[in-house]
């Protein structure tokens, strides 16, 4: 691959303090460099918007959950079919895109790295098989820990050391990247058809509380020095009044000392679904301002939005009891999938409607969170694809963030008295391009500890997006142009290779899969393994030695070392 | 000023009409008997909004081939001062008098395209079904779109169309028939009412279509809104200072009409007056008005009868 000069674009690179300067970005050997050869290929980016490739901190693109979504929704695929081209494979899109199409469409929007946010360990091999069929973008997968038998066991025993050893081993065994927690304790209880109602409910048989699970995992996570904080789907998701649980949860991990190099100790995922105020779906209102107030005052918290889009989509979470509840609310088809000893999942199709008061409020909450949380380094743009809506709507969400008029125009189609149950109509803030670059790239990469991503400094990965948009001439009234240009990048460059030109995919390299290698002392690990193996033989249906994901599934794997005190 | 019709003097004046909201309900039943019973019940105590909640009357009997369900029917019309009051009256009257009446069903009598608004009577009526009501739909994507409610009742099911067309209607069409005797005047008025029945879109809400006690606005008694129509009472012709009863007239009856629009009311007035004048002993026909203070419609008898 030759050198590349992306010439003269308006560059937004907040990590390096570049805010719309017209400059060149030079790439050689897949990395951003200071100089390139004379024969470097030139991309004329003059008058165009240039940013690092997008980094999605939370999405569902691979593994059994999304594949159940695909499997159960032929009606969703039928409305969005993708024919093959000379370069690309055929597939389907919309809320549950096929693996190839997911890769293409992210790249077409200028995204070059996407985090699969929920990987059940037993399904890890499946996740990696799908990731290997997801072209162009780099990926990671977050391993589910919050309802794992061994997590619960070590939390119950109060053995933080073995918990750390277990986390290290399981991340390695699953080739996972982060500690994901979904409805801690609730999913285990769901295996008896029950749930937990709050932070201090107890998990059957283990007699531990969600609070203990979260704080123990957070403590272990930080002591191990994992690149990302715990990634948390709080209890009571989708339950009116749950903002209190959310704030309680944030508060619970406040005292934990963050790993070196960061201030955060918890990432609260798709916070919109967890910022509801009110007592029931009739009087539900936004709790976003309360959550935002807490986040503004507490540096140990980061969140992503889980923004709602008004469309037909497919909800899928590791939160089995919530999906059961949603099935009862909607009567739509319901898939539940419990995973022995460790996790669960549910999938239910859902349509967000402007004329549904609860949906309108949820829509408002997502944007309120984005606009009321002052520090863009701690609030990230997501739709929790496909839960709030397909990721292909990101340009629309960005338009709402950057243009009050865009918000006003859509609010006109909604019930005003309903919207008054949010503060959104009174919010005037509009994001700048620099802030957009932050919430979609720089801050997410930083939060994930992906050091070479999300920025364009020397040594950064050569992942760049160039858009047909002149940021100096753009005004918020032009939000439709913004949407159009963000949806189809002028160029997407991945590892120095042009993969998208004028919105069309031109090349389909296989991106990398990052996984975390975390170390604990060998003796500790051996002790833990002995216990794990014993329980494994008794309670799993898969042999202990057949459990870890083999190297064959990581053809483009990249090992990321944790920086805890035992790191080599 | 006046003119003659069939030898009867007609005063060149106008009936003063005023606006009301009107609706038409087709009541069907197993047979004419039950359709008529329901219609009579439903239109009872509905002569004048002076003291009734609405004005209502039977428009005509509807033969089976013209009703939506092919059963004998009766068309009734209801008039109220506002859509809200009309709706409320329809609801209570349908609820008390039709829903309760064996074998009946009700259908809207004013098509949506001809209506000024659609009253969602079914929206309230259905709750009588206590959750067991069933929405019946016709014409989705093909044919005429219609909605009904099927409400379970002890006998079987009460079928009610969900929405009823309402129009800005005309009330207060009238004429006075004056004759030399009570008999002649009554017969002439009856004939008039019969003739009016033939005119679509009009009802005469008073007993038998006829009102013997015309009223004027106000009274010597402060607590009364209306009182007997002194200028037209023959028995006090000479004691009342403003009597308008012509010589030779010993009885006066009033025919009062409400209709879906002004032309229908005028047509009905003309048919009625013509029929009345054909009776021996009728001397004089006039109409009541209040100099334009009551309503915006001035329905001249000359215009109605087509006299230049």
């Amino acid at each position, binding site marked *: 691959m030759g050198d590349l000069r992306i010439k003269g674009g308006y560059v937004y690179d907040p990590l390096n303090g570049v805010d719309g300067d017209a400059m060149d970005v030079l790439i050689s050997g897949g990395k951003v460099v200071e100089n390139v050869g004379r024969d470097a290929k030139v991309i004329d980016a003059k008058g165009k918007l240039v940013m690092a490739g997008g980094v999605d901190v939370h999405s569902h693109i691979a593994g059994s959950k999304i594949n159940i979504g695909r499997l*159960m*929704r*032929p*009606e*969703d695929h*039928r409305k969005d079919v993708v024919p093959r081209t000379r370069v690309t494979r055929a597939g389907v899109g919309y809320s549950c895109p096929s693996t190839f199409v997911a890769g293409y469409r992210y790249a077409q929007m200028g995204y070059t790295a996407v985090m699969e946010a929920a990987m059940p360990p037993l399904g890890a091999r499946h996740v990696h098989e799908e990731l290997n069929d997801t072209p162009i973008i780099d990926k990671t997968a977050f391993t589910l820990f919050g309802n794992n038998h061994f997590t619960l066991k070590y939390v119950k025993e109060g053995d933080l050391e073995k918990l750390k050893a277990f986390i290290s081993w399981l991340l390695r065994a699953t080739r996972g990247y982060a500690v994901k927690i979904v409805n801690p304790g609730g999913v285990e209880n769901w295996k008896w058809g029950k749930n937990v109602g709050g932070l201090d409910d107890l998990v059957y048989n283990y007699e531990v509380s969600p609070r203990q699970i979260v704080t123990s995992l957070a403590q272990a996570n930080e002591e191990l020095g994992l690149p990302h904080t715990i990634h948390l789907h709080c209890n009571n998701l989708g339950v009116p009044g749950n903002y209190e649980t959310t704030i309680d949860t944030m508060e619970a991990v406040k005292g934990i000392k963050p790993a070196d190099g960061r201030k955060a100790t918890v990432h609260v995922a798709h916070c919109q679904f967890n910022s509801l105020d009110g007592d029931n779906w009739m009087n539900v209102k936004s709790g976003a301002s309360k959550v935002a107030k807490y986040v503004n005052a507490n540096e140990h918290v980061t969140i992503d939005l889980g923004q709602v889009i008004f469309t037909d989509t497919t909800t899928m979470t590791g939160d089995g009891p919530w999906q059961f509840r949603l099935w009862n609310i909607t009567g*739509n*088809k319901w898939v539940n999938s419990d995973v022995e000893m460790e996790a669960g999942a549910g999938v239910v*199709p859902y349509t967000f409607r402007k004329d549904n008061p609860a949906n309108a409020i949820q829509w408002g909450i997502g944007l309120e969170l984005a606009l009321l949380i002052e520090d863009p380094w701690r609030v990230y743009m997501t739709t929790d694809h496909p839960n709030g809506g397909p990721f292909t709507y990101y340009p629309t969400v960005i338009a709402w963030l950057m243009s009050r008029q865009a918000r006003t125009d859509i609010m006109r189609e909604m019930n005003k008295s309903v919207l008054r149950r949010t503060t959104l109509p009174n919010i005037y803030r509009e994001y700048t391009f620099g802030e957009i670059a932050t919430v979609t790239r720089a801050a997410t990469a930083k939060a994930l500890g992906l050091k070479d991503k999300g920025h364009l400094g020397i040594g950064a990965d050569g992942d760049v997006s160039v858009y047909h948009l002149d940021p100096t001439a753009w005004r918020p009234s032009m939000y439709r142009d913004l949407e159009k240009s963000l949806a189809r990048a002028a160029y997407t460059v991945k590892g120095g290779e042009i993969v998208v030109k004028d919105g069309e995919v031109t090349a389909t390299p296989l991106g990398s899969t990052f996984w975390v290698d975390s170390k604990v002392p060998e003796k500790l690990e051996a002790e833990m393994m002995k216990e794990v193996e014993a329980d494994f033989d008794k309670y799993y249906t898969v042999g202990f030695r057949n459990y870890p994901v083999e190297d064959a599934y990581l053809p483009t794997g990249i090992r990321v070392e944790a920086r805890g005190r035992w790191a080599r | 000023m006046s003119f003659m019709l069939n030898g009867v003097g007609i005063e060149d004046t106008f009936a003063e009409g005023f606006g009301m909201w009107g609706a038409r309900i087709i009541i*069907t039943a197993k047979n004419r008997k039950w359709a008529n019973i329901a219609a009579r019940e439903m239109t009872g105590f509905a002569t004048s909004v002076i003291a009734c909640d609405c004005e209502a009357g039977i428009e005509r009997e509807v033969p089976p081939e013209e009703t*939506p*369900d*092919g*059963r004998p029917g009766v068309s009734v019309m209801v008039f109220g001062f506002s859509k809200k009051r009309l709706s409320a009256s329809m609801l209570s009257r349908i609820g008390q008098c039709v829903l309760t009446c064996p074998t009946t*069903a009700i259908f809207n009598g004013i098509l949506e395209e001809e209506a000024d608004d659609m009253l969602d009577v079914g929206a309230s009526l259905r709750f009588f079904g206590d959750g067991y009501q*069933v*929405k*019946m*739909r*016709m014409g*989705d*994507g*093909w*044919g005429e779109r219609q909605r*009904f409610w*099927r409400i379970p009742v002890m006998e*079987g*099911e009460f*079928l009610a169309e969900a929405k009823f067309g309402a129009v800005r209607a005309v009330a207060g069409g009238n004429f006075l028939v004056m004759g030399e005797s009570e008999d002649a005047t009554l017969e002439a008025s009856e004939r008039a009412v019969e003739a009016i029945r033939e005119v679509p879109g009009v009802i005469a809400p008073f007993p038998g279509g006829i009102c013997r006690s015309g009223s004027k606005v106000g009274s010597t008694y402060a607590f009364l809104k209306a009182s007997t129509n002194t200028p037209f009472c023959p028995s006090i012709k000479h004691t009342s200072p403003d009597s308008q009863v012509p010589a030779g007239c010993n009885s006066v009856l009033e025919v009062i009409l409400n209709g879906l629009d002004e032309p229908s009311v005028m047509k009905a007035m003309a048919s009625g007056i013509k029929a009345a004048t054909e009776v021996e002993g009728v001397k004089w026909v006039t109409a009541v008005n209040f100099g334009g203070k009551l309503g915006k419609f001035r329905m001249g008898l000359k215009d109605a009868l087509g006299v230049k």
Partner: protein
Amino acid sequence: MKELMLTPKKLPDLPLEAEAITPDSVAGKTLKEVKSLPVYVGNTVQKLGDYFDVKGETAETPSDQLVAIQGECGNVKYIGAGMTAGRLIVEGCVGMHAGAEMEGGELSITGSASNWAGAEMKGGLLRIQGDAGHQLGAAYRGSPEGMTGGVIVVGGDVGLEAGAFMRRGMLIIQGDADSFLGVHMNGGEIFVFGNVARRLGAEAKGNGGFIACFGGVESILPTYVYDTTFRPDFLKLYLRQLRDQLGVEAAGEYLDASFRRYRGDIAVGGTAEILIAEP
């Protein structure tokens, strides 16, 4: 109405997919353009003119367009699929998906239709004088809504799962209906003048939906409960419409009939009705 006549030449052995045959796609085009409309055979794209003689006139708008096909099209799929207006008459049989997702106008087939005729229909009138295959007017796999409007009138018999997941509209079957008629239905009306096989109305929710059977029923599911025998006034409205506007003469015979009323499917807490005419 302007009439365009299509006469099949030698049709291929493989199914021909011809969603191009609708008033919508021919209106406003020249005959030459019509002949060039794409049709699909296996993995190849061909032209309509390769397989059909095209004569007659095209109209400005679909609503003024009559398309008449003279000849057997039993292996031609998607005829009239998605049409929104105008008339389409086929003198012969048609293949799968005829009139699928149609939104308006009239599609009239003198012969029989294969599976998925009128699937997920939204509006308009689909007449099949012969028999219809399986999944008549049904939801496509996975879709929660089958017919959402319009009327299908079948002269003959129909296969499995007719009216599956029906939400709105009418399905009239003058012959017999196979199993799972109106399965999962949640609104809409089904009338059958022939015999109905078992499992009709399985898992139906209700929402005003009913199946009226005039020619007898093989059996009623154990999850339907018998309520009463009565003469429902509301049915008279439909029957008159069937007789007077849709030419279903048999409907007139049941205006004063008594019906046995069953309600279910209680397995799903449903309130749908099965009405069976008393002999």
